[in-house]
């Protein structure tokens, strides 16, 4: 994982390559996502980039009917809502991401604890393409 630096934007550079990165503390083994220069547990500066498996489970979610400005530009609205949630990775840490392939018409049917696998979603058109993290049921 030497290709990626600790700079926060490299999280998205890795994502464009289909890779979910974070960091591991070489002193206390604590994992973080996105990658951190300073270990959130022991506060040391001895961290390295790691790659996650991309497997996780849903720990909280919402189905958004009034979208962010950016998501509205991507075509989401009250009639075309999307799901976003917090995903706890198999390795431990959690991250926010869009959740694909769930029942948007019946949010009651979306279950916390659902096993998920990472994917990416690409928005925008040429010149302004953005690759974002997403998960779908596994």
């Amino acid at each position, binding site marked *: 994982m030497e290709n990626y630096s600790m700079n926060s934007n490299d999280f998205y550079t890795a994502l464009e390559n289909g890779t979910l990165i974070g960091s591991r503390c070489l002193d206390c083994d604590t994992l973080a996502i996105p990658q951190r220069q300073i270990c959130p547990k022991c506060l040391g500066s001895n961290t390295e980039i790691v790659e996650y498996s991309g497997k996780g489970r849903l720990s909280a979610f919402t189905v958004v009917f009034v979208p962010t400005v950016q998501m509205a530009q991507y075509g989401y609205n009250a009639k075309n809502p999307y799901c976003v949630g917090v995903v706890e990775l198999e390795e431990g840490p959690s991250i926010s991401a869009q959740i694909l392939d769930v029942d948007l018409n019946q949010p009651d049917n979306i279950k*916390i604890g659902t096993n998920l696998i990472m994917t990416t979603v690409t928005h925008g058109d040429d010149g302004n393409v953005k690759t974002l993290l997403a998960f779908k049921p596994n």
Partner: protein
Amino acid sequence: MPENKWKRGVAVAGVGLSKFGAFKNKNSRDLFVEAYQDLMQSAPGYDPQRVEAFYLGNFSSDQFEKQAHLAPILASWVGLSPIPTLRIEDACASSGVALRQAALAIASGQYDVVLVGGVEKMTSLDIAAVTEALATAADTQFEVSAGFTFPGFYAAMATAYMKEYGASRDAFYHVSIKNHRNGALNEFAQFGQTIQDIMESKKKRAAEKGQPVPQWENEIDFLGDPKGNPMIAWPMALFDCSPVSDGAAVALLVSEEIASSFTDTPIYMIGSGQASDGALPERENLFSIPAAVEAGRQAYQMADLGPDDIDVAEVHDCFTIAEIIATEDLGFFARGQGWQAAIDGKTAREGSRPVNTSGGLKAKGHPVGATGVGQVVEIWKQLNGIAGARQLQGNPKIGLIHNVGGTGQTCVVNIFERRT
């Protein structure tokens, strides 16, 4: 011994409030002047010459009005120059934090008299731009980019809470109904209507237009119908969300020993705490706000009081789930009991734990930078027995405010006492 490093006590010697709402012809300075004049009228002992500093809570006049550096502008506008001024930004907790910082400045001995303000003019932008401006209070790089909105964050906390404790959406409806009932009794509130009033007016409007009249039987029935209460971010619907608001509030803070030279009815700031946190995914669980627990712990410890000593509380109900979580974070109810307590009416004015007698952010309105000081205005009125039709019985003596920035990246809790 309680943890109290303050060198001397601090009192609130007067308060002022503007009407909260959507006011096309009023900007930040007009709103602030309205609140300031309310202070001058309600506090006969107020003397501008005695004010030594001005602390202003304001989230983002730069985004809402393209005007930064608001503190000296407002101070000058009411004739307070050349006293030192500063603007404090901690998202929706800006003026709750400003209040604490002003109190610390007095407690240190630096000042005897500080004017604390809070103001936000939000309706100058359209709703999409307001949403975008508010979103800058969250982690834009890693959370907003994923598609999270502010209602979405709290909605996600709601799903975690419902899953953990088996709560139903009905509990959220009860928070909204209760806060609208309180707001309907507050002449400063943005919404002077109960949910029942709103439901009846929608029925009436449908009848007038010759459309089929909705058959809602009661408020719960109305709130459960997406036609009456459209979904914003499931499970948070329109009536779970505080509105976009314009408004201002002021409080006059003075050192304890000179309070009686300003007013016969000071209230004393006997506890204060503040804490911070990272984004949602960094937290151990999503059905509590750790910064609120920590700020509350500090404030209780300093005041040498516990949750059972609080007679009245104004908590940060930016969304209905937030009020339920706040009542647990502050220890008013045990973990997992807050939702049932809301359904059982324990947080109503007549209940054992009155919360948000002002109508809260939900019904009074949420001009974000004004909210923290606005909460103190209600505590002042309740403790001094001047809250009118919504006045609590039993002569409340201890009041608490809980003001949250973002989704709990900032929380400040302040406790006040009446001694007369």
